[in-house]
């Protein structure tokens, strides 16, 4: 497969090698029902200080990919292949102890549901210091000072007192802030945020996102933002990867994805965003059908069973041939679709754009 998105100009460090490069990543899970092909050939790059959004429905392989970067499939039954290069080190082939040294230190993760992601029996402060002490040979007092600083930084009031609280004594938004503080304990160069705001209400969501942007500027970390919320993507990211059925179906910079999308699935995603500033028939558009089974992925285009634009395809069979992820135009905008680019542009401006 030859799919890749380069975000930002190539860095001059490490002889032009990007900070994070994922090459042809595949993650498969053998189960009793068959092989679950969760991720099938994922490629992207990311530089420090930049944010990459990965969007797609549930089961499109977003979270599984991020867990692969964390090396959290190691020791499980999952089969991971391909390459993940982080700051000159290859993670897929890395041993568990080496990977463990990187986790939390180089790569940290913010999980979706901060209530279940924090241990209910330990104090928030202790969970934060634990993340620090495992990588730093420092006295507990130093770790505590750092934890209180970060709790303060993420906007938790009277952090020196809340340090001693248990997770259940925090509100949802505060828990997510504490999660972020925990992820930042060791100044990670790469932060993976797996739906960090999905469990939160909208006002808190905006605060958390602002916080993440501020912290990114401060720490110059690279962020992978996994979400199915395109509003979050628009606000936060420079580059976007749209995943479907474990594959990238469209990728590019955020303007291309929002203003010049060419893949019917991306059109569907954009059409399903609720708008408050628009009156009309009042019904949200949904994409018909359901996501494909990852055990029996469609032979051809993964989106084919749900695609309404197949009649525009010429000279290829959507049901049997998998379209390549091809670059269009000058920028790193890539689309996986059998419809030719001119036709797609026309369809978008004539049929899709007016209804967005």
């Amino acid at each position, binding site marked *: 497969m030859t799919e890749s998105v380069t975000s930002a100009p190539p860095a001059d460090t490490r002889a032009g090698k990007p900070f994070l490069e994922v090459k042809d990543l595949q993650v498969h899970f053998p189960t009793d029902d068959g092989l679950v092909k969760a991720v099938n050939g994922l490629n992207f790059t990311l530089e420090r200080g930049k944010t990459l959004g990965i969007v797609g429905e549930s089961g499109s392989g977003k979270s599984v990919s991020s*867990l692969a970067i*964390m090396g*959290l499939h190691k*020791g499980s039954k999952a089969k991971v292949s391909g390459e993940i290069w982080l700051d000159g080190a290859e993670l897929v082939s890395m041993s568990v102890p080496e990977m*463990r*040294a*990187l*986790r*939390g*230190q180089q790569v*940290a*993760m913010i*999980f979706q*549901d901060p209530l*279940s*992601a*924090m*241990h*209910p*029996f330990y104090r928030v402060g202790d969970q934060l210091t*634990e*993340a620090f002490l*495992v*990588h730093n040979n420092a006295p507990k007092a130093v770790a505590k000072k750092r934890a209180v600083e970060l709790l303060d930084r993420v906007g938790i009031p009277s952090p020196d007192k809340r340090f001693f609280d*248990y997770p*259940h004594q925090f509100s949802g938004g505060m828990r997510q802030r504490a999660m972020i503080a*925990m992820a930042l304990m060791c100044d990670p160069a790469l932060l993976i945020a797996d739906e960090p705001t999905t469990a939160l209400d909208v006002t808190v969501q905006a605060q958390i996102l602002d916080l993440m942007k501020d912290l990114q500027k401060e720490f110059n970390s690279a962020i992978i933002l996994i979400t199915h919320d395109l509003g979050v993507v628009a606000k936060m990211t420079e580059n976007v990867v749209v995943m479907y059925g474990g594959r990238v179906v469209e990728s590019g910079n955020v303007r291309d994805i929002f203003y010049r999308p060419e893949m019917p699935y991306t059109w569907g995603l954009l059409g399903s965003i609720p708008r408050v500033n628009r009156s009309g028939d009042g019904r949200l558009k949904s994409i018909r059908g359901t996501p494909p089974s990852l055990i029996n992925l469609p032979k051809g285009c993964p989106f084919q069973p749900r695609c309404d634009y197949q009649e525009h395809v010429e000279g290829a069979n959507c049901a049997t041939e998998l379209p390549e992820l091809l670059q269009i135009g000058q920028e790193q905008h890539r689309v996986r679709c059998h419809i030719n680019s001119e036709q797609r542009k026309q369809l978008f401006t004539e049929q899709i754009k007016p209804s967005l």
Partner: protein
Amino acid sequence: MGRYLIRRLIQAVFVLLVISAITFFLFWATPANPALLICGRNCNAETVAQVNATYGFDKPLVVQYGQYMQGLVSPGGRTIGSEGNERNCAWPCFGESYQNGIPVWNSIKDAFPATLWLALGAAVLWLLSGVMLGLIAALRKGKFIDKFSVGLALFGVSFPTIVFGYLLLFLFIVKLKWIPFPDTANAALFTVGPVKWLQFYILPWITLALVFAALYTRITRANMIDTMNEDYIRTARAKGLGERTVVFKHGLRSALTPIVTIFGLDVGGLLGGAVITEQIFSITGLGKFSIDSVLSNDLPAIMGVVLFAAIFVVLANIVVDVLYAVIDPRVRLS
């Protein structure tokens, strides 16, 4: 916390009161006639009347129950015996056995250590083996050791204690002669020394622990498998913690919480006597004492042993609830 404990203790007293009343009136609802048993073979109307007067059987049941409870409640105990032959029965007065006239409290005090050692030893054995097997099985889910543990647990729960106990006794004492025949005098640790004491208790411990160990293996395994799939375990790994910290500090800590509950209740229950195991190995503990007293319609002994066992169960409940709040910060005592 203090108020909670006081309320629970008051509740406990109430529960014990109900238990004592039920036991007492249930006994008199049976066709048993203690007066006939006491006067023995040469019974006639006169001797029966005499016995009735001596033991107060001629009084209404409510009065008898009141007198009985007086012995447990009033600090001075109560006076028992017929007129002219009155004697004080010191607190706590559970009365005197109809069988041999020995104060029931003395018998209970004599029988309790054997039961205590039996229960505690077995508890340590089943807790350690059950949790360990369950933990290993959970961490090696689907592997040979897991299937082995689950199989062993199935064997343990389905093998009747009475068969297993006699099998052990026959094999190690009668056939192989590795262990001398149980001599009840060896039940006391502080007089016979640890070697004889261990020899005496080892088979009873294994017998008693088998069923519990099997149950605990299954519970630990199931809890541990659930816990290791929790999001916070993933978080712990994502922090870069070592697998041992993840398993023991983050996993086992949560998985053991329900174990604490059932462990407290199981041990509390056993302190009232392990009937079958004590019977097999001729341990003169509370279990054997309760069997004997039931078979001989010995009301004071039955009342005594039932109340004594009930106290442990009720207390174990309170201890478990408090412990639960200590372990899990989300639980509030109220």
